[in-house]
């Protein structure tokens, strides 16, 4: 009798540990002699994954013997998964590296240095100067090649500003405040500005400050002025934040204290909000809206400060190779493929500023909402491109702190002067180590 009990217990354990009925074979095995690359994306979205799959199919047919398996974890969890793969040294050959992650990943020795490969690659010369610049990390090595760039522009409602009696969209922050305040009418569910008070709400505050200090900003470290101090102690900074937070009190929906990107985009998308400061990725989303038609909206260049200048904080991401990859050669080949003509397809489908020189001549980028990006590129002295210290170890810590402070100001628990003071202290302390 007792033996039977043992056997049953043992059997259930075996069942648990092997579960023959439940396991199906691994899928990572490629057919005889073939190389299978695992490619992991980070800023995943369903449409983008589809585009990538098409491009990968092209790559596979051009390179018989190489197969690529695309791993598409949800965006929120992706970077953590990538970290685990890199740390375990297993699972990733090609991966999406972001300006936010290249610092830690390279510092931990997880990324393969492509410098030598890039020197041999003729495609490198076709990249825009910006793309070439961003493909080099601060230590001079190439850990990833950008696939495109993000940058802000002002989305605005052509019909609403006309109704309110303005002939042209705002060009600077003051005009934005005037126009948005005039349009705002909560009783009619009409709001001026899609304010970002929630996650990453600090980004637009900083963009505003950077415009106000346009004359003195250090373009290689956009959190500093040329005299080496932080931009937050510059006299113009106070003026900037005061204008910026007036946008909230006079021209934004009251609940925008908690708005993140989905609410902002939705607010513009459903026709209730007149202005939205966002990345070009939003263009595709708004194009799909049925609440506003294409002739009801457009984009305008980024807003300038009193100096007449605006600072465009560039954000980017690209493709890199894991050091633990056993198929480095094939992996590099794939990165080069994705940074060639394929990159323009990718940038167009995902509404990104492209990396190839030839793409600028494309009709697609000259018309409609993209025209303001061309304007900004053509006037580099007005629209400065600046480098934010997004690669520093404390960037996320900063972002969390700054978002919190922005909300403190919004719920009247902190003054704008205190905000600037604490931001200055934060950065000075970090810079002094």
């Amino acid at each position: 009798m007792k033996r039977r009990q043992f056997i049953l217990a043992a059997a259930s354990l075996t069942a648990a540990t092997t579960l023959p009925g439940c396991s199906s074979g691994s899928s990572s095995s490629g057919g005889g002699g073939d190389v299978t690359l695992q490619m992991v994306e980070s800023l995943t979205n369903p449409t983008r994954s589809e585009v990538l799959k098409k491009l990968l199919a092209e790559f596979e047919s051009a390179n018989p013997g190489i197969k690529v398996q695309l791993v598409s974890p949800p965006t929120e969890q992706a970077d953590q998964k990538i970290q685990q793969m890199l740390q375990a040294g297993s699972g990733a050959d090609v991966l999406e590296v972001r300006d936010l992650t290249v610092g830690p990943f390279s510092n931990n020795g997880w990324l393969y240095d492509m410098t030598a490969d890039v020197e041999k690659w003729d495609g490198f010369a076709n990249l825009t100067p910006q793309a070439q610049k961003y493909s080099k990390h601060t230590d001079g090595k190439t850990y990833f090649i950008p696939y495109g760039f993000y940058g802000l522009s002002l989305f605005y409602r052509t019909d609403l500003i006309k109704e309110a009696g303005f002939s042209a969209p705002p060009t600077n922050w003051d005009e934005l405040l005037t126009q948005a305040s005039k349009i705002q009418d909560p009783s009619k569910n009409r709001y001026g500005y899609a304010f970002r008070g929630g996650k990453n709400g600090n980004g637009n505050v900083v963009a505003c400050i950077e415009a106000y200090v346009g004359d003195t900003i250090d373009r290689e470290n956009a959190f500093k002025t040329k005299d080496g101090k932080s931009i937050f102690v510059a006299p113009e900074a106070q003026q900037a934040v005061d204008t910026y937070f007036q946008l909230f009190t006079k021209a934004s929906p009251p609940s925008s204290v908690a708005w993140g990107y989905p609410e902002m985009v939705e607010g513009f998308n459903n026709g209730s909000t007149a202005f939205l400061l966002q990345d070009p990725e939003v263009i595709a989303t708004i194009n799909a809206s049925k609440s506003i038609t294409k002739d009801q909206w457009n984009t305008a260049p980024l807003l300038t400060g009193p100096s007449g200048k605006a600072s465009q904080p560039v954000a980017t991401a690209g493709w890199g190779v894991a050091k633990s990859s056993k198929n480095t050669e094939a992996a590099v080949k794939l990165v080069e493929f994705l940074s060639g003509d394929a990159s323009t397809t990718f940038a167009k489908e995902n509404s990104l500023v492209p990396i190839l020189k030839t793409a600028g001549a494309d009709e697609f980028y000259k018309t409609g909402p993209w025209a303001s990006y061309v304007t900004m590129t053509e006037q580099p002295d007005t629209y400065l491109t600046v480098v934010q210290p997004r690669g520093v170890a404390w960037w996320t810590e900063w972002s969390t702190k700054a978002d919190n402070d922005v909300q403190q100001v919004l719920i009247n628990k902190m003054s704008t002067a205190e905000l600037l003071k604490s931001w200055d202290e934060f950065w000075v302390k970090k810079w002094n180590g």
Partner: protein
Amino acid sequence: MSVTDHHSKKKPFTIRKGLSLLGFLAPAVVVVAVFTYYPLLRGSQMAFRQWNLFDLRNTPWVGFSNFATLLSNPTFYTVLKNSVIWVVGSIVPQLLIGFGLALLLRRRFRFRGIYQALVFFPWAVSGFLIGILFRWMFNGEFGVINDLLRKTGLIETNIAWLATPKTAMFAVIVANVWYGVTFFAIMILAALQSVPEELLEAGAIDGAGKVRTLFQIVIPFIRTTLLLTVLLRVIWVFNFPEIIYGMTGGGPAQQTHIVTSWMINFTQQGDYGVASALGLIVVAVLIIFTSFYLMALKERDAR
């Protein structure tokens, strides 16, 4: 540990019996030890090391300095207080509604099966989905909750639910109550089935009112299930950041952060050392709570 010892006849042991009981326990113990405890203990060492994503080649042991960092941070005490509000504010209504629902469902009625399937469904929704769904419904301008309240004349102007600390806390708790009633309802309903009909009949014959029957017969009988359910829920809700993370991200101005949602901030900052230290503090707090809880129960049993 034992919650109830009213089964007085615990049997003496023989070696053979001991072995066979070991066989019963072995599968559970082995699986949990290998796939839960081993990685947990491996991971816990991060709490005592400098373990930052930005430099994982250099992870020296730092003793309790990660814990000290946390204890000297004023936000720590805010999130601790918020955790208590969150747990008590969520569990009390969950228990009361869940109990009520179980009692109402005990009696047979037409369409009861369908009714149960319908009202139990919130438990089938994942925390993250509840978070973004309720965030959307509680949106001040475009949310359906304000729209309904205005249409029914309960409010005249929109409430910016997630924009002030108090209303935001209220909103996340509403979402959590909505989600958690099911668990109590099912557990209590299942437990009620074990209450012998005769006991109830006897109570009725005694002329005891419904309320008295409930408190003097039903509740004592299902006490173990009830108390364990509450204990489990306290532990889970304390450790349940998904709704808060999705709805408010801990805002505005960190006023709705609980310990575990605050911990997500540290993992996102790559500071796994501090995050794990916070995780271990959570465990310590919960172990202390559990011990007191179980001790208090034992004392009541002994009386």
